[in-house]
């Protein structure tokens, strides 16, 4: 610690070079922060504990196939199932196809199986007693400036009403709030009554897209999901029951291997970064050969010279990296806003920070290693003579 000022002075001996290198490091870690946020956005919830007690039952053959209403009571009869809710995809858009709204037609008890959704009791009452009432997420409300009491025309991309009209009118009766650790996207749902949807829709008849089965005990998941799937075995509506997390993840996985793409880009970025900073460090040490020799002459051991050079390169990386990650943390919400809900980037989380700092230290050690060893092995006489 007492050598800190010495290392600092060495680092900023050549201001231009250090600044230029720093900017490169900042951009590399800015990119790392953003891409890591994208990666986490796509495998959302896989580590969260929220919703481990929920299973999703959907058609085994295809997401577009719906399930019969009768299944609800049969699933409820299975031991270990606490609650069964259901929902159907509504596919709503607001005014323009670009404004996609995650809208589900849901059963009356839907909100009960999602304890991470909080709705004020009087709003819940209003929702339960209304026909065209909807409750919406806070992010969605903010995006379009919707308030309780507003009448919202929502177009369904799939379901026309009985009169052939594809625009449905809804009344906002509540705006809920969600816990921070809820799955990604939970804060922008548009929930309408399945009953209203079923009665007014031209095509569907007592059909649900998927069932949400809440368990009494999360550890019973395997047994219960097998029991549910056994109910409809060999029927024309065979089901597939999986944990909510697996269900959510299956959509992201279908988009492509986001993790692989992100790691490939990061590989290219960090490879370049290592080369660049290694070059800087080599130059820095070469320039200071005589200074290092002086240090050794006045009694610094070879090991402490080694440590000082290593510390210098780690410091360079950490300085740039922390600035870069902070920038990424600042930019992520702006990007999310700019994408109009299409991309919902979480801000740089604890895991990303830990990984980022780990990378900074490792890269710092790697790029500092060669020059540091050279500095350690310096022969005082040769170095002072400039040989």
């Amino acid at each position, binding site marked *: 610690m007492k050598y800190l000022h010495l290392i600092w002075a060495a680092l900023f001996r050549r201001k*231009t*070079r250090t600044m*230029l*290198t720093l*900017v*490169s490091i900042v*951009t*590399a870690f*800015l*990119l790392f922060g*953003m*891409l890591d946020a994208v990666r986490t956005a796509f495998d959302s919830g896989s580590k969260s504990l929220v919703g481990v007690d929920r299973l999703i039952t959907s058609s*085994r*053959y*295809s*997401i*577009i*196939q719906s399930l019969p209403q009768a299944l609800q009571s049969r699933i409820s009869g299975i031991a270990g199932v606490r609650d069964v809710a259901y929902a159907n995809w509504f*596919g709503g858009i607001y005014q323009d*196809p670009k404004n996609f709204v995650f809208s589900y037609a849901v059963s009356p008890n839907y909100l009960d199986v999602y304890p991470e959704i909080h709705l004020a009791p009087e709003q819940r009452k209003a929702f339960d007693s209304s026909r065209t009432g909807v409750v919406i997420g806070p992010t969605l409300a903010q995006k379009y400036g919707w308030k309780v009491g507003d009448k919202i025309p929502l*177009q369904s*991309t*799939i379901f*026309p009403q009985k009169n*052939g009209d*594809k625009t449905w009118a809804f009344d906002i009766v509540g705006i809920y709030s969600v816990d921070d650790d809820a799955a990604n996207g939970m804060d922008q749902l548009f929930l309408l009554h399945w009953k209203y949807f079923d009665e007014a829709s031209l*095509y569907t008849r007592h059909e649900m897209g998927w069932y949400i089965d809440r368990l009494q005990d999360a550890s019973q998941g395997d047994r219960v999901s097998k029991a549910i799937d056994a109910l409809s075995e*060999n*029927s*024309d509506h*065979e089901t*597939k029951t999986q944990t909510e997390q697996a269900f959510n993840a*299956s*959509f992201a*996985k*279908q*988009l*492509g*291997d986001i993790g692989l793409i992100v790691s490939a*880009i990061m590989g*290219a*970025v960090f*490879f*370049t*970064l290592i*080369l*660049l900073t290694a*070059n*800087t460090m*080599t*130059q820095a040490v070469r320039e200071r050969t005589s200074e290092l020799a002086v240090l050794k002459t006045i009694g610094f051991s070879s090991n402490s010279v080694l440590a000082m050079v290593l510390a210098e390169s780690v410091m360079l990386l950490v300085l740039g990296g922390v600035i870069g990650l902070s920038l990424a943390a600042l930019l992520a919400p702006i990007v999310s806003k700019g994408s109009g809900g*299409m991309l919902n980037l979480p801000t740089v989380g604890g895991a990303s920070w830990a990984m980022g700092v780990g990378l900074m230290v490792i890269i710092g050690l790697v790029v500092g290693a060669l020059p540091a060893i050279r500095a350690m092995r310096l022969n005082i006489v040769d170095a002072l003579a400039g040989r």
Partner: protein
Amino acid sequence: MRKFKSFLGNLGLLAMLAIVLVIWVQLTPLLVGALALLLLLWLVLTRRGRQTLSVTGVGISTLGQRIGASSVIVIGIAGVVGVLVAVLAMGDGFAATLQQTGSNDTAIVLRGGSSAELNSVLERDNISVIEQAPGVARGSKGEPVASAELSVVVNLPKKSDPSVDANVQIRGVGEEAWALRPNVRILQGRRFTPGLRELVVGQGAQHQFAGLEVGKQLRLAGQQWAVVGTFASGDSHDSELWGDMQTVAAAYRRGASAQSVTVRLVSPQAFDTFKAALVSDPRLKVDVSTTREYFSKQSENLTKVIRIVGITVGTIMAIGAIFGALNTMFAAVSTRAREIATLRAIGFRGVPVVVSVLLETMLLALIGGALGGLITWLIFNGYTASTLGSSFSQVVFQFKVSPQLLWTGIQWAMAIGFVGGVFPAVRAARLPVTTALREL
């Protein structure tokens, strides 16, 4: 006062840089070739040019001694260009697959307001009206060349990761489907027999999803289906499984309804007549578009997202690379400070010095750009991937590293080299001769 002057100078430099970059992105390869020729002529024919050439020669001949530093520029820029070209090649490949699908002389009819086949429903009586509309071509027996089609999505495991259930599109097609899409060829096996639970699979789907080899059985909607053939179409139909429309409709309880009707038109010009006839028909409420237009539209959104992602990541990486290049070139200039000062002392002017440093950087950048492009081309050209398309099913496509993309990569590389070289170049030329000569 001097500080103020140098500040103004730097400001001017920045403005010039911005102007040059703006012009640079507009340039076509032909214009760049012409510019390069002009530069070459200047280098060979004028006195200044020959001076520049000799200074550049010295710089380039000493590159070997600065191999570590110079490789920072080359590899840094190769990384930027590689990532940029790879991401854009993904977007282009996806767009190309969908844009090749369809033609101007076939039209697709969907229920009004449906953005994709998946959302559309057409009843039997509507289908007959559409098939009899004016402008529809007739076959040898006088029947309309039209195919009412059904599109359902099924879950199939991906070959690369069997735990992923991918949505794959099954298209139930009518007998005329083969005549409507002459580019569809059977590669292996045979066509399905109408009335039987048989499927032919696109080569892309066969490549990406498990269990689609000819002779295999598939369980769909609780029934066994046989894979009897493989087809190639070279477009997005390659990602689909085709079966008989009536049989698919029966399996999925769709009754007599279909989701889309595709017809061959008498000629591309007949489209307007056809569309006008359907739109004005009070019995129908449908959207009509040529198949080319329909499939191109399906690629718009995702292609746009991929382009934005590619350019954003590319820009951030480019900023990093520019600073890397600046660093290297500043170091190069300062190690050669004495040499440059000597040159100027014996009468070389500023311009040759500036141009030679720039040329050196641009040369390194060019090598980097070419290297990045080449590596991407080797790895990714023709690489097959699949993603979720807008009809909620997997579209199999190939990365397409086209010459235009490689050119874009080279343009980026040269721009990075230019920005990274111009400041060190100016510094080299501005260095007071006396100080530089004294410097160790």
